[in-house]
């Protein structure tokens, strides 16, 4: 009698479990503010959709991630999301997941595997596309005629290299536009300001410069201060474009001191769940889903700033 009740209650519990989708998420760690908001957004999305999320923090170690994925497989989850620490070494564990027929979604950083069938899809922002987007906007604004001062990111960083590549690809189509000054601002506000000060002096007090293209918002914010101190109006005398979409930059745009930015979205949770749910429903999913953010301009900046400040 007792045993029957126990079996019954367990099976009822099991049914409940099966009814809700269970998804395992292996995150790199929490090394930056951006990564923290990425984790938070995944958790919030899971709660909103009624998905049971098994969250695992790998503390920057791949072995922890592989352990976590194996335990997800053993628990028989419906899907696995991995934000990989490194690109290599994923083949064995992905094969195990495939054998268990569990779809795996790779988010943010890339992985290197020969068999593309080992994972369902990869969801990431495309740095080159970000550069292209902002370049297209700038060329449309200036009718393809612009002398640009470039503030590069840290030398050798993927974000810096790829954003420059995308931007220059668009720029090549406009012979009247040119990057006249280029130097690294190391992704920081103070370096961006210092480099911009020198650019202004070297280009007749900034008269020759039509726009500043910064590889991230922080450097652009530094450049804005340098331009203001030189007695010019950032946003009108010299256009400011960059990538990231941090709240301070939206504030600058709302005040008319910056012109445009492309958002680097930390909200990768939604698209990941979409992909897994689509797969479970039997639909086909694209191999690469780009989450390159939207371009924001001064028109919506004030409202966006209010929205972001509250978050």
């Amino acid at each position, binding site marked *: 009698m007792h045993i029957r009740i126990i079996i019954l209650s367990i099976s009822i519990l099991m049914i409940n479990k099966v009814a809700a989708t269970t998804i395992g998420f292996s995150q790199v760690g929490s090394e930056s*503010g951006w990564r923290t908001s990425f984790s938070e957004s995944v958790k919030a999305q899971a709660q909103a959709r009624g998905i049971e999320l098994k969250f695992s923090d790998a503390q920057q170690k791949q072995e922890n991630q592989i352990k976590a994925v194996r335990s997800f497989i053993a628990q028989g989850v419906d899907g696995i999301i991995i934000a990989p620490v490194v690109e290599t070494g994923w083949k064995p564990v992905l094969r195990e997941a495939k054998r268990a027929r569990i779809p795996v979604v790779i988010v943010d950083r890339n992985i290197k595997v020969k068999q593309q069938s080992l994972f369902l899809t990869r969801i990431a922002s495309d740095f080159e596309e970000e550069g292209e987007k902002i370049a297209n906007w700038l060329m449309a604004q200036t009718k393809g005629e612009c002398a640009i001062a470039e503030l590069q990111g840290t*030398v050798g960083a993927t974000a810096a290299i790829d954003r420059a590549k995308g931007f220059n690809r668009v720029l090549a189509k406009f012979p009247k536009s040119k990057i006249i000054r280029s130097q690294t601002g190391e992704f920081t*506000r*103070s370096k961006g300001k*210092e480099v911009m000060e*020198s650019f202004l*002096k*070297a280009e007749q007090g900034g008269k020759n410069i039509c726009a500043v293209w910064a590889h991230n918002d*922080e450097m652009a914010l530094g450049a804005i201060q340098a331009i203001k101190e030189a007695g010019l109006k950032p946003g009108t005398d010299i256009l400011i474009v960059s990538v990231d979409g941090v709240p301070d930059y939206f504030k600058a745009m709302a005040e008319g001191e910056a012109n445009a930015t492309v958002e680097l979205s930390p909200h990768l949770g939604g698209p990941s769940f979409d992909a897994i749910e689509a797969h479970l429903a039997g639909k086909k999913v694209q191999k690469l889903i780009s989450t390159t953010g939207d371009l924001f301009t001064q028109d919506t900046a004030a409202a966006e700033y209010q929205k972001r400040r509250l978050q």
Partner: protein
Amino acid sequence: MKDSIQTVSAGADHKLSEQDLAEAKAARYQAGKSNSVGRYIWPVCALALLLAVNLLLDASFFSISYQDGRFYGSLIDILNRSAPVALLAIGMSLVIATGGIDLSVGAVMAIVGAVCANLLITDISVFAVIIIGLSTGILAGVINGALVSYLSIQPIVATLLLMVAGRGVAQLINQGQIVTFQNDTFSAIGVGNWLGLPMPVWLVIATLLFCQLLVRRTALGLFIEAVGCNASASRYMGINDRHVKLFAYAMAGLCAAMAGMIATADIQGSDANNAGLWLELDAILAVVIGGAALTGGRFSLALSIIGALIIQTLATTIIVSGLPAKFNLLIKAIVILVVLLLQSEKFRNQCKQLLRISARGDV
């Protein structure tokens, strides 16, 4: 110097006349003096050379205009931008003169910046914020100094602790964010002007004058050098070497606090990750370019400032030159190497010999 030694040895054979002795004595006392003039020539030459290169790159480099109640030009920029490193170098000179080293000054800049920025968003008066900021710097310096002098921990290890931990403390205070503030009075420390010159430049001038008077018009400078040359010997002479060291580190902390406030006021925000990052190395470099001995016992505050100016002029030159950013560090290293070689007497003598040999070869 050499001549005087010859006089002495030659005179030893005969009988030393009073006059010879007096001359030799005078020459010996003068030796240090003539040497110190020589010490100034090479760093100043290097700075002049760098400025000349800038003139070639950009003809308008030396033009200074007066607008909006302040001077405006590349030279002013160099003075302004070199201020944090120059301040750090003043403190670092004192520490290095005692035979120590302070690796934590960059992290102290970040801490002070974070403390000030977080206090500024509350209702505390700016004056109080500045006092608290400076006290924080001095406290950090005293911690370093106490570890070095009372617990006899190697300076490089003792200050490494705060270098690593300090940035973490700053991040904790800022909770991982860049804390920005709107306060015109505090911002004036970084972007304000007085008598046409940027405020940071005045801060450096004031600090330099204060420290120079302190170490050269009192016996303190002598004490510092004595402790740097030989700490135990100076202790037997009655100098409290622990207090001297503690003072040097506290001064370094105070200077770092001022540099941190300049950096924070400059961008009107505290960036714990990047404020003062690697600046301790630039400060040490400035002191070394200024001809101070890393083993202690010899220092010059003015030369350290010239060292800081050389570093900043170089940075500006690289930006203006338009060379790809990936060459920055390489160029910096090569120029610094040349400056240091120019200062080395041995290297100069070898060059002279080489020239002489090649000249003989021509004949």
